[in-house]
């Protein structure tokens, strides 16, 4: 196998909140053009792990490499500068602001501290139409829009700024079937462009059909990281619950 540099490598990540050990010596790697499913039941440490990668939490121990270089991610802006974008489970938009204002939140186009409103509006318009996202008005408050429209704006925002790594935390949980499918189509497109995508979901069916590899966490520890199709759905579910890796001797890769 030729050496492909992973987009992301996380080594020996540990995190505790006071006395609560959330993560213990966790590893994770992500390659260009793949969707990595991160699985585990509530409290398994999935959210904490991705928050560390996104700069929303700091690990107590461990190191992160992005494109083979060690990265120090101290806040969300550091992560963004490295091309890491996150779409959170809860729709992370300010309901009282318009779509363009949300799209550029935290990195407003400006000149001497003044907003370049027209430029942002035009660019938001382009970004949304490129992804076939239709909203009734660019000036309307985001709060007045449907869950699907808001999630679309989140995605448009996430991929707009030269993104290499996209973290999606339950991106379809708040959406209907039709809207979920649209999101999936969008992801396939992004995958083709060579983005690495981390997909966190409870929907085992969705994960099975949609991811290239899976990483299972249990009690804040790695259970297994392997190709998705090396296991059946039932086996994956049992690993999530038991926290024990199923050994594969023949056919698959022994872990």
């Amino acid at each position: 196998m030729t050496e492909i540099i992973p987009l992301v490598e996380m080594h020996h990540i540990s995190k505790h909140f006071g006395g609560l050990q959330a993560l213990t010596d966790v590893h994770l790697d992500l390659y260009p053009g793949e969707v990595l499913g991160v699985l585990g039941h509530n409290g398994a440490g999935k959210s904490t792990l991705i928050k560390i990668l996104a700069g929303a939490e700091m690990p107590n121990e461990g190191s992160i490499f992005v494109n083979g270089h060690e990265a120090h991610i101290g806040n969300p802006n550091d992560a963004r500068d490295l091309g890491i974008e996150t779409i959170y489970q809860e729709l992370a938009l300010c309901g009282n602001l318009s779509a363009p204002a949300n799209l550029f939140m935290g990195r407003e186009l400006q000149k001497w501290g003044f907003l370049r409103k027209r430029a942002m509006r035009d660019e938001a318009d382009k970004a949304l139409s490129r992804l076939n996202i239709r909203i009734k008005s660019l000036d309307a408050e985001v709060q007045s829009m449907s869950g699907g429209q808001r999630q679309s704006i989140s995605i448009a925002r996430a991929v707009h700024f030269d993104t290499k790594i996209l973290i999606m935390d339950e991106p379809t949980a708040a959406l209907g079937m039709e809207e979920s499918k649209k999101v999936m189509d969008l992801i396939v497109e992004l995958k083709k462009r060579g983005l690495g995508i981390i997909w966190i979901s409870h929907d085992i069916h969705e994960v099975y059909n949609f991811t290239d590899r899976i990483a299972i966490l249990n009690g804040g520890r790695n259970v297994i990281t392997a190709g998705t199709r090396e296991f059946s759905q039932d086996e994956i579910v049992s690993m999530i619950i038991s926290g024990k890796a199923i050994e594969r001797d023949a056919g698959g890769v022994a872990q």
Partner: protein
Amino acid sequence: MKSIERLKSQPLTWIILVALALMLTLSFASPYFMTLGNMTNLMKQVSIVAILAAGQGIVIISGGIDLSVGSVLALSAVTIGWLIEAGVPSGLATIGGLAVGTLAGWINGMVITRGRIPPFIATLGMLGIARGVALVITNGVSYQVLDPLFLFIGNSKLAGLPIPLFFVIGVYAVICVMMHLTVLGRHVYAIGGDERVARLEGIPVDRQKVKIYMLCGFLSGVAAVVLVGRLAATPPSVAEGIELQAIAAVIIGGVSFAGGRGIVATALVGALIMAMITNGLNILGISSFYQQVLIGMVIIAAVWLDNLKSRSG
């Protein structure tokens, strides 16, 4: 038609209509209300609360509150008086007063963001501290300020309008530009809308909050400059309870107490409405006891109307 729709959805439109209706009613009720003398008087009366309400409006839109504006005003005023008493030129004394106000705001901001103290508590503390320091500095005595600069601010007119009015106009012009055209203003709305989201999206929430409280403190200093001009003295116990008037002006103006919604300019109209009620009822010879009752009812009615509007919208 579309422009009418837009106008109707503007919070400023509604509050100005209410103010005009009130003005009309009062001018019919008393021939003395609409006189030049009374209007000038009204403008002077409203100026200090209006300037404080501008700062308060920004803080409330950002999802916070500043209870210390009255005390910080007193501390700034006392600083000015004390410096002038010590022979410092009035220009430098003014800068000193503004600096003290800004410093108090900075402390508020740092306590709130670094100390993780809720704004209500932090600024309640500052309410006591600033007032106390003002009393300590002066030993409870009021300095007389007979400096030409402050006499000019308090008593002169420019183009027929009292000088404090120009302070109000200047403050609101700058604040409107800041809130609607700058990155800081956008961040105020984002933080007030959803602080967690703002943080996740990389807005330096703590830094911006410190700026917001500094600005509010600075505006308390500006209000102090006007007050010193008007009183020609700096009693350390001045403007007690004025913070509640500033908050009331912001709320009557229609700014949401939950944050993220509203326009600072409406606070000016809110302050005007309160001043007109007080002034109008004085002219009509109605007891000031009733004025308090009425203003209280207006505050509740303003929020109630706002709720109705957002429910129907």
